[in-house]
């Protein structure tokens, strides 16, 4: 298998970044994120970290993204400068959970009728270099959500990690193209691919979507949401959450319309002009979020809206999270009638 020594990582990244912006896991103070590689930030490179604090979804779905510009003059209105970034990017070192999340975002933005132009432009231009996940952390539960931590799904190239080397396995045309670019840095070598230790944390989601169909009115939602503060942490750090708002930046006679991440936890998310709010209470919003991920997403797109990355487990201010919710939902007895 083609491979390069781990010690040569900066050379490889330099080569990739020479032509294409290359997102790698980087430390940023006390957090981490996928950020564009540059030699001068080499000390922040965090390839040994498990998951980044923030997911890479922002690369294909930025938190704030300009859609188009406009100008008004009296009664006249002009729309110009539609923005859809068509540039190429590389995502280096994406684990199976984050790639699974991309697959879920693809379902939302590219299927079911409409194709989201902005998302598609970014997604088409992205080459994903995945990596094996040998040691899932104590809060990882991807395999319970149907993700293989060593799987190749969603990767254009898969990196196989050994003690000293990264094996380089191109899987798609995009991956082959990168292989050509790195050819002189790759050497052919016999690599023994270690096994993944697997996830220690397990949840049981068998039959859950079906069960949830009968649980909309369950008092368990009141119980679970008691200490939810309706902040947006879980939705913003979640690699699958995709809700957005469309807003105007107005400089008087001109401006732009942009979209930005929104959270179903916020009261004004569903608030209609005139004051009606179909999900007025925090119980309603909490329930909708978890049903969306565990039932509705499954019904609509055939997979869960959760990739088991574990970010919400270490970020929710009151330790409400996917695992706690799934476990509690599993305990509830539902009347078969």
């Amino acid at each position, binding site marked *: 298998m083609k491979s390069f020594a781990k010690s040569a990582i900066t050379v490889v990244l330099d080569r990739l970044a020479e032509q294409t912006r290359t997102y790698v896991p980087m*430390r*940023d*103070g*006390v*957090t*981490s994120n996928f950020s564009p590689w540059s030699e001068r930030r080499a000390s922040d490179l*965090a390839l040994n*970290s*498990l*998951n*980044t*604090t*923030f997911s890479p979804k922002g690369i294909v779905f930025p*938190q*704030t993204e300009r859609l188009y510009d406009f100008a008004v003059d009296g009664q006249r209105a002009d729309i110009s400068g539609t923005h859809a970034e068509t540039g190429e990017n590389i995502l280096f070192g994406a684990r199976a959970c984050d790639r699974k999340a991309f697959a879920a975002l693809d379902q939302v933005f590219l299927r079911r009728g409409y194709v989201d132009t902005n998302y598609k432009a970014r997604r088409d231009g992205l080459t994903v270099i995945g990596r094996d996940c040998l040691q899932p*952390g*104590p*809060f*990882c539960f991807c395999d319970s959500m149907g993700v293989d931590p060593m799987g190749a799904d969603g990767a254009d190239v898969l990196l196989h990690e050994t003690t000293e080397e990264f094996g380089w396995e191109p899987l798609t045309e995009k991956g082959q193209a990168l292989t050509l670019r790195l050819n002189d840095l790759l050497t052919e070598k016999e690599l023994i691919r270690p096994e993944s230790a697997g996830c220690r944390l397990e949840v049981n989601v068998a039959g859950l979507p079906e069960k949830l169909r009968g649980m909309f009115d369950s008092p368990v939602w009141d119980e679970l949401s*008691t*200490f939810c*503060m*309706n*902040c*947006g*942490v879980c*939705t*913003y*750090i979640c690699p699958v959450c995709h809700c957005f*708002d469309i*807003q105007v*930046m107005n400089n008087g006679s001109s401006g732009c319309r*942009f979209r*930005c*991440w*929104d*959270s179903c936890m*916020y*009261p*004004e998310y569903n608030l209609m002009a005139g004051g009606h709010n179909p999900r007025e209470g925090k119980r309603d919003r909490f329930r909708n979020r978890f049903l969306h991920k565990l039932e509705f997403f499954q019904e609509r797109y055939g997979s869960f809206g959760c990739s088991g990355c*574990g*970010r919400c*487990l*270490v*970020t*929710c*201010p*009151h*330790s*409400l999270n996917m*695992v*706690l919710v799934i*476990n*509690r939902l599993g305990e509830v007895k539902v009347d078969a009638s």
Partner: protein
Amino acid sequence: MGDLTPEVQRIAGNLLSQGQVDLVLGWAKAPSNGQSVPACIRQAEQAGRLIFDQYCIHNLATGLLDHRDSSERIGIFVKGCDSRGIVRLAEDGQFPRERLYIVGICCPGMKDQAACDRAASGLFGETAGDSELAGKCRQCAHPNPVIYDELLGDQQPPFLNDVRFSDVQRIEAMGIGERGEFFSQIFSKCIRCYACRNICVACNCRQCIFDETRPQWVGRSTSAADNMMYHAFRAMHVAGRCVECGECERVCPAGLPLMLLNRKLIKDIDQLFGPYEAGLSLEEGARPPLSSYRVEDPDPFVR
């Protein structure tokens, strides 16, 4: 500190069985992973669920806001900082003292489970080892409850392991431009999840200016200007009312040092209108300095 859990369970059980309160807010262990989490119980038989350990870091006082429109009587367990939160709510007219039975716990200092978890999970975060005091406790001057009906544990010394406001002095040493750059840099990383606002006991407005749409005062984009606007507004809004519980900083997913701005304002208000520390005692008619006016108030900043 001895294990207070049996005491906590006994008191909660008695309060409920004797009908002194309708519900009790405390902490319990999450069955899924054994984390200490906020808990609300309504039956004496559930009292056995409650615990108190070094991970009961959450300020439960903010949770009272969910009950402000009911008439239920509530038993609540509070640490030093949480008790100041109760004074905050009462002073702001948001929750009457009379509906509460307050069980104070002299706080031995808490550990931040989430920060430990982040470190253990391989996600970056504070590398607070198991033995370390949570970030928010390191500047704590009042670990003992300031208001209570019953007190548990032994009086604790302040944890301030540094000169008070040493971090603020660092900011004050900067020039105006440098300071602006410093805070822009910090707030540029804000993801506007509003966790800091929602967890804040001083953020008790029913309709928050940041949720207002007619007019929309602050844009929803995560731009430098909108982020700065959000944090500056919020800091000024809680100025003189912040009880230094540090919850905003604890819950920030971006790890922003949010208490820095708050502490700068605490220091200024103390010097200009003080001596003053918010939420240390509940007195009839008392108002935070920025909510009251005296002719002799200094105004050197008005030019």
